[in-house]
Structures are given as structure tokens and as C-alpha cells.
């Protein structure tokens, strides 16, 4: 098993390398790094100072080295707009995104898993069709669309919920639902197909042959096995949620990472954009690694394999 973990870590390091390389190359080669990385309205001397600082006259791999080095030391530059180090900004906003993601994830599991189970147990029944519709809409409708419709109904027409900002439980309901719907659909689909697969397995057949009540067959034998892939996906999705919340946070003016990204783009604050993308991508790669390792530690089958 140690081999497995080492190999997985190696892969992740490679992925991180490729990620940083991609971002670096896109900025330096496709874009105009000077324009991006200097404030609008900088003087000629500032521009020249930038040139030197980023070593734009030096070979690419030297530049890349500086690039990586600064990130590892936590220097993501300074935000033009806020005039504070980007990393500080990032960690200021991160808790808000975490809260939103946590609530959205809870919603997606509470809705997704039971409906997936129901859909599998009553295949082609009413719940299965209802579930399929719910999933189709959740996976198709753009988040900004859902958000705006919710605002239209609950804020404008009914006046029940606030349309923006944060601070109370009421504020989090609509954004969490909007963010969570897509994932509820994904979790529902996976639960359903996983349950169907498990319900066709030999050990479920044997459980029935043993004369166990159906509730026990489904609730004990089928469920535990079926939920393994779902929980795995949910773990990864939590981190993904944090990073894809840009639309939801923009629509509802929720002060998280996503909104930070939006501000970065709108105000041409490139260091912010770059930081969000680098940190976001790295986060996802790392969480994938963590989950794989966790799996190897927990699953009794893999543990004893080597």
C-alpha cells in the first residue's frame, strides 16, 4: 500500500506542475504579461521596473522558476483594487465560500441520496420519473438562471427572502439551493445507478434468499455498498463547489472566493484572478489525492492487498 500512496503522490505533484506550467505559459506567452500584471495607469518607470522584476528578458524557465517560487512562499502579489496582498484577501473571503459550500452540500445530499435510493428501488415508478426530471433540470439550467428566477419569485414577488448579501440564515437559503441543485442532481444520479448495480449483485440475491425482510436487504446490504462511490464524489464535490460558486456568489452578492474572482475580472485586477485559479486548481488536485489515500486506508480490501 505504501507503493500505492507514493505513486499517487507522484501523480499529484506532476499534476500540480502541469497546472502551474499551464497558467504560467498562458499568461506569459498568450497574454501581455506586462499589461496584466501592472496596474492600469502605471508610469513608464513602473513598467520598466516590472520588466526587470519579472525578468521578462530572461529565458522562460527562469521566469517559471520565479513564478513557482513566489507562490510557494505565499506571495501572490498585490491586488490593484484593494491594495492589499492577494493572499490576505483570499483567506478573508474563504470562510464565506466554505459556509456556502457546506450548506449547499448538505442540501444536495439530503435531497440527492434519498431520492436516488427511491428512484432505484421503484425503477420506472413515479419517483424515478420525478427524480429524472429534477436531475435533468439541475444539470441543464445555468446557475445564474436559477438564481435569478428564485430572486424573482421569492424576493420580488413574495418578498420572503433577501436577494443579496450575507448575514442570516435567510440570506443563505437561495444561494445554497442554487449552488446545490446541480450537485443534488449529480448525487442523485450516482446514487440511483450505484444502487441499481448493487441491487443486482449476488450478495443482495443471497440476502433475499436468506429470507431477510426487504428493508434489511436494501437498508443494510445494498445501501452501504452503494454509498461508497457517492460519498467519494461528495468529498471531491465539496471542494469543487467552493471553486465553481462564482456565478452564485455574483448573482446573490455573496462575499466569497467566487465573488472575488468576479471582481478581479471586472476591475482588471489580474493578480487576484491568477491567484484564485492557481489556488483553486491546486485545492482540487490535493483533495483528489487525499480522498484516494483515505480510501486506501479505510477500504478493507485495498488495505490488505499489498
Amino acid at each position, binding site marked *: 500500500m505504501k507503493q500505492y500512496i507514493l505513486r499517487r503522490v507522484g501523480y499529484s505533484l506532476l499534476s500540480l506542475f502541469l497546472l502551474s506550467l499551464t497558467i504560467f505559459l498562458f499568461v506569459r506567452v498568450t497574454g501581455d504579461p506586462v499589461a496584466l500584471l501592472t496596474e492600469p495607469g502605471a508610469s513608464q518607470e513602473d513598467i520598466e521596473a516590472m520588466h526587470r522584476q519579472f525578468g521578462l528578458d530572461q529565458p522562460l524557465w527562469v521566469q517559471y522558476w520565479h513564478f513557482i517560487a513566489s507562490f510557494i512562499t505565499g506571495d501572490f502579489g498585490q491586488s490593484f483594487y484593494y491594495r492589499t496582498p492577494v493572499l490576505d484577501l483570499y483567506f478573508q473571503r474563504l470562510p464565506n465560500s466554505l459556509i456556502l459550500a457546506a450548506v449547499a452540500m448538505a442540501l444536495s445530499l439530503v435531497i440527492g441520496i434519498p431520492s436516488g435510493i427511491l428512484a432505484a428501488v421503484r425503477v420506472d415508478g413515479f419517483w424515478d420519473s420525478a427524480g429524472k426530471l429534477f436531475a435533468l433540470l439541475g444539470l441543464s439550467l445555468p446557475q445564474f438562471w436559477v438564481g435569478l428566477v428564485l430572486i424573482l419569485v421569492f424576493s420580488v414577488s413574495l418578498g420572503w427572502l433577501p436577494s443579496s448579501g450575507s448575514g442570516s440564515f435567510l440570506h443563505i437559503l437561495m444561494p445554497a439551493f442554487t449552488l446545490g441543485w446541480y450537485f443534488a442532481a449529480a448525487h442523485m444520479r450516482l446514487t440511483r445507478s450505484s444502487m441499481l448495480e448493487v441491487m443486482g449483485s449476488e450478495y443482495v440475491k*443471497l440476502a433475499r434468499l436468506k429470507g431477510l425482510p426487504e428493508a434489511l436487504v436494501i437498508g443494510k446490504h445494498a445501501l452501504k455498498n452503494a454509498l461508497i462511490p457517492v460519498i467519494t464524489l461528495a468529498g471531491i464535490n465539496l471542494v469543487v463547489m467552493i471553486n465553481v460558486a462564482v456565478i452564485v456568489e455574483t448573482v446573490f452578492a455573496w462575499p466569497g472566493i467566487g465573488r472575488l474572482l468576479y471582481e478581479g475580472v471586472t476591475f482588471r485586477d489580474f493578480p487576484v484572478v491568477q491567484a484564485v485559479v492557481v489556488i483553486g486548481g491546486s485545492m482540487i488536485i490535493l483533495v483528489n489525492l487525499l480522498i484516494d489515500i483515505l480510501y486506501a486506508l479505510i477500504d478493507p*480490501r485495498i488495505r490488505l492487498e499489498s
Partner: protein
Amino acid sequence: MAGQTLLSLEHLSAHYVSQQGTRVVRAVDDVTISLGAGETLGIVGESGSGKTTLALTMMRLLPPAARIVAGRMMFEGEDLLKKSDEEMRKVRGKRIAMLLQDPMASLNPLFSIGNQVAEPIRVHEGAAPRTAWQRAIQLLKSVRIASPDTRVSQFPHEMSGGMRQRIVGAIGISCEPRLLIADEPTTSLDLTIQAQYLNLLRDLQREHGLALIFITHNLGIVAKMCDQLAVMYAGRVVEQGPVSRIFNAPTHPYTKALLGSIPRMTDGGERLTAIDGQPPDLSNLPAGCAFAPRCPAVTTRCRVEAPPEFVTEPGRSARCWLAEPMALRSSAA
């Protein structure tokens, strides 16, 4: 037949119906079999002959696409087909138990051995968890698993194939059923282990007064273990009776071919008899006898009219026109 009749299937038929209702697969067709207490029956046939479907029919655990369309299943004097789902559930595992073919796949990888063996005891007899756990250890001992106290807390993937097979057997006998159905019990085992396992089953049978049904395509097992034999082809029983009588003088050409295709040391290097042709498509059976296209002794009548079962001696019958001249007055009704 020794003892009273434990199980009596009478003209049992189970069909699979396609969603639009247009294709019907006659998986089990007009099957009449009986078995006495403590006896061993072997059900033999090729893949697709309906043997496993028959077993699942007996347990009333067919997939939703299948229906039992005719017949009676008498078990200890009751018609199982007349029972409600809940009543049937109480029969399964407690009075009739079944062992599936692949022991690795039959055991849930996430639960301990003890948990899975004790489960039917807790459900059917309402035993407390600790009592059931102790019973489980006893059961593991009776199926000859070494160090049962440690094994009972372990997981399926930590066992060898032979051990898993025996664990599945332990699950089967856990509630002292009267009938145990074993579906291809030795197919996944090494040859050396097969004999051990079969001996174990025979010992268990004697200790517990079990009736056994072996579903197999291996005539060697039938010869060794079974008193009675039923040969299935295309969902129908084509010959049945005492094993020794049938082995000595088979009536049905299919049975003859099966027996002739076993390589024997005494053959003197003769070529094996293979059976020409392919097994039939059960959704598109020809009119007449299902074996007719492959039968070396086929007549015109065979192609046109399907033969009923003819009783040729008490306790022995064959579904073949060749048996007609030998038939006793009363047919196997």
C-alpha cells in the same frame, strides 16, 4: 422413495415475458418432480436448460420479468404458490435454503463473516445478537473451518475460496432447513477441495436430516452424491428417476448422449460422443419435441408433436416417444 414426500412440483411453468409482451421465454415448462425427506436429487442440464430458473422458482425469487404461469409447488403439504410474499419470506432461509454458485460474490464484502452467518438466525428466530454470534461460531465449526473464533470476525476477502464456499454452506444450514438447494456448488472450487466439500455436504445432510438438491452439469457429482436424477432440456424435464437405473439404462436420447460424452478410462481411446447442434433458443422453440433437431433417433412424429412424460417404471419417467411402448397405464400426473 424413502420417507414421506417433502417437495412435490406439479406441472410447474415459469416464463419470462418481454416488456411489450411479444417475446416469451419458456424457461421452466411443465416440470413435475418430487423429492422425499432426506433424499438427494440431482438436476442436470446444459447452460440455459432452465435448472437455475427452476431453483429460483422454487424460492419464488424470480426477476420481475418472469412469471410463474402454471402448476403447484407442494412443500411439506403446503402449496408455496399460494403463500403471500411475507409468508414466503419466512420460508426462505428457514425451511428451504439455497446456496449460490459464486461464494466470493455471494458474501457482502463490507460485513464480517459472523455478521452474515448470524443474520438469518437473528431474523428468523429472533435470537439476541450475542446468542446468534455464538451460534455462528458453532456453525463455522460444523462446516470444518479452523479457528472459528478468530475467523468469525474476519471479512470475506480474507478467506480462501474453499472457506468461502463452506461459509455459504454454514449460512444455508444456519436455521436448520428441511431442504437445501445447491446451485453448481463446486464449479468455482479446485478439484482437491471439491471432494472435501461434497463430503461435508453429505455429512451435514446425515446430521441434520436434510434433503438436498444439486443443480449441476457435472454427472460425476450426480453419480457420487445423488439418489434421484432429473435431466432438463429446454426448460423441460426429459428424464427422471433413480440415479443407478438411469445411468445403467438411459431412455431419452439426450441422457444417452450426456452419459456417452463423459470421457472414461475404459473407453480405450474411442472418440467422445459430442451432441450435434446448438442448444435451442427458448423464445423460439420448434413445434414438437425440443430435442428433435439434435436427436439421433428422431422420427417424424417427434418433429410434429411434443411427447408427454411417460412413466416407464414406478418412480421413473421419460419425455420421449421412444418411451411410449414401455409406458405404464397411468401417466406421470
